[in-house]
């Protein structure tokens, strides 16, 4: 235990020193759109900025999941410029005094609402609602609230006395301020207020489903969401999969670059802004709860299903029975162990449960449980096969049938042999759940990411997340060790 803590503190010290004497970031080299040729450009994946950046000759396009990540990369000198919508750019520049947006827009574009192809009725309803909102000044009010100098002074409030009949699910990606962002855990922003106003006119309750930006079109076309609203402009590629409403606002793509004289904050300031301001520690707490919940439930599924598969497999191996079941088990194991966890998670969420509205945590529990079962199955099978055949014969010679021998004699011994491996699988599973963010679950890793996207500070959130995982794994190992000692009583000499 002491060794581990010593190792952790040394590691932390080294990291602190590394960030302390961070190397100089290169000078800005981009002063106009023409300078972008041959440069490295940061964009948010799936945005129109990305499409434009890819057309720039000889430019390397680094695609980030979030605009904030691209901005962070810019600050660290990993990219030369970031191409992004004007409104978020303004927000980022305001939060980062060492960045600036070039005055000339790169391109001007119009934002619209994505709808499922063929959903003409809703399209028309939304279009006429947009006309009304523009006519009565609501749209101007919302725009004033989110963009420009009067930020936050004109919040949209629903008129009183509206009776909601039914719901309207809006897919978005709350990482694109000021159009959509998280404020103290709530998803808000220009698009959210605008859609709320539209829904108020339609008499529908607005339900927001937060997901990765590049998942929104899929969610809409598969019917998981009714509309996709995320500062999206109409492109030919998107039109292949979805329809768009009329444009509700105009936006520009601008170029953000570094300017000299970055201010350096003290570690205490960074700590305050990372954990205490706006109660950001709550993102970690909520994330930790979700991570633990997913891990625990997935482990239960994994162990139960894993044992069943292992028994089928080893029964077949020993007696030649259960041929068909064994065949399916083998296919299952091959597929699960032969594909990455993230891909399985995405397939289960977007393909298998594609058109079903289902709790995302549940999806994750199923996905991780099914994945873990495959590994548990092979561990348990090796445990069963490691028990001497004489034990089966001794059981049989006392008149025990196969299943009674299995349960009373073989499995207890197998379990003891495989406990370290099972504990290891639990540890792997716990860490593997960090990909839950791919289906927009706020797990521990995502919690750290959310903080990072708000503070533009990578060190503390990431180290905090890493430390929490580390502590959990150390605790889990200790637990497995104790269990192992208790179960190995018969090995005393």
């Amino acid at each position, binding site marked *: 235990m002491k060794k581990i803590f010593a190792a952790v503190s040394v590691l932390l010290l080294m990291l602190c020193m590394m960030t302390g004497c961070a190397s100089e970031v290169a000078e800005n080299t981009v002063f106009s759109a023409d300078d972008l040729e041959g440069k490295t450009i940061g964009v948010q994946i799936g945005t129109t900025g990305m499409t434009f950046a890819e057309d720039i000759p000889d430019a390397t396009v680094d695609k980030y999941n979030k605009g904030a990540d691209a901005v962070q990369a810019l600050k660290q000198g990993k990219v030369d410029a970031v191409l992004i919508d004007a409104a978020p750019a303004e927000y980022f520049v305001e939060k980062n005094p060492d960045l600036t947006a070039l005055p000339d827009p790169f391109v001007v574009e119009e934002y619209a609402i994505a709808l499922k192809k063929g959903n003409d009725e809703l399209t028309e309803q939304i279009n006429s609602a947009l006309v009304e909102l523009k006519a009565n000044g609501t749209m101007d009010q919302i725009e004033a609230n989110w963009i420009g100098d009067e930020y936050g002074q004109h919040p949209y409030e629903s008129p009183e006395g509206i009776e909601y009949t039914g719901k309207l699910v809006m897919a978005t990606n709350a990482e694109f301020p000021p159009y959509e962002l998280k404020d103290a855990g709530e998803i808000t922003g220009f698009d959210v207020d605008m859609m709320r106003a539209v829904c108020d006119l339609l008499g529908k309750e607005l339900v927001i489903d937060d997901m990765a930006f590049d998942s929104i079109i899929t969610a809409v076309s598969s019917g998981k969401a009714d509309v996709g609203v995320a500062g999206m402009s109409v492109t030919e590629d998107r039109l292949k999969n979805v329809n768009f409403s009329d444009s509700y606002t105009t936006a520009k793509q601008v170029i953000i670059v570094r300017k000299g004289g970055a201010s350096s904050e003290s570690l205490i300031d960074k700590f305050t802004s990372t954990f205490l301001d706006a109660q950001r520690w709550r993102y970690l707490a909520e994330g930790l709860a979700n991570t633990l919940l997913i891990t625990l439930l997935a482990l239960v599924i994994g162990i139960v299903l894993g044992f069943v598969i292992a028994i089928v497999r080893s029964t077949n191996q020993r007696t030649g029975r259960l041929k068909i079941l064994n065949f399916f088990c083998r296919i299952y194991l091959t597929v699960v162990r032969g594909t990455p966890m993230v891909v399985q998670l995405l397939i289960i969420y977007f393909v298998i449960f594609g058109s079903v509205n289902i709790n995302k945590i549940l999806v994750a529990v199923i996905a991780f449980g099914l994945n873990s079962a495959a590994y548990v199955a092979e561990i348990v099978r090796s445990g069963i096969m490691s028990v001497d055949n004489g*034990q089966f014969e*001794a059981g049989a010679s*006392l*008149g*025990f049938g196969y299943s009674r021998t299995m349960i009373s004699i073989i499995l207890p011994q197998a379990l003891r042999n495989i406990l370290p491996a099972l504990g290891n699988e639990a540890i792997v599973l716990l860490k593997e759940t960090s990909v839950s963010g791919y289906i927009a679950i706020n797990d521990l890793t995502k919690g750290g990411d959310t903080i990072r996207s708000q503070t533009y500070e990578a060190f503390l959130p990431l180290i905090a997340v890493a430390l929490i995982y580390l502590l959990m794994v150390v605790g889990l190992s200790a637990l497995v060790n104790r269990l192992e000692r208790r179960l190995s009583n*018969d090995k005393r000499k």
Partner: protein
Amino acid sequence: MISVNDLKKSFNETVVLDGISIDIEKGEKVVVIGPSGSGKSTFLRCLNLLEQPTSGTISFEDRDITHAKGKELNEVRMKMGMVFQHFNLFPHLTIRRNITIAPVKHRLMTQAQADKRADELLALVGLSDRADAYPSQLSGGQKQRIAIARTLAMDPDVILFDEPTSALDPEMVGEVLELMKRLADGGMTMIVVTHEMGFAREVASRVIFMADGKIQEQGKPEDIFTDPKNPRLRDFLARVL
């Protein structure tokens, strides 16, 4: 009690048992001897169907059990105990639980009744003080005595011994043979595969000599050991005695 008729067993292409026929009466102590690879152990393991015979029939207490399955097979094995060369005690259970697990799981006794029976059996095999030990804490000879006690706990009609002393250090062979002798004197029906010729001569009511998957010669121990007819047997005895 046990009646075997033209029993044959092959593994893939290899013929291990080539037509064995024998009747064993209640109370008999049959000792099977022969060179290694002669099929002695396979013959024994066919009797309680740990090996499925390729052809021929086996009857036990006037019932054809050759193709017994499931419950019927388990019932046969409850009455036909077996002691293995490598003891095969259950390492995760205490000595007491090793002895009581079978009668308790078969619901023949409550745990309390079985514990009482275990105490008697432990006294019989002379290991009363090791009831709460685990198998790994016992010597080989002690393990084999516990394995015999475990078999006795099911109150079997016959016990099959598959080379019970072959895996033991020489100084421990005596204690196991002594226990088996006492069982024999108590009237237990026993079929013993062994290389202990002294035991065969002293305890057996009938000695069977097997070679090449066949019974080559059988008879009372004094005839077998003093007046062997079969040349293979003569050759075998010349080498082991």
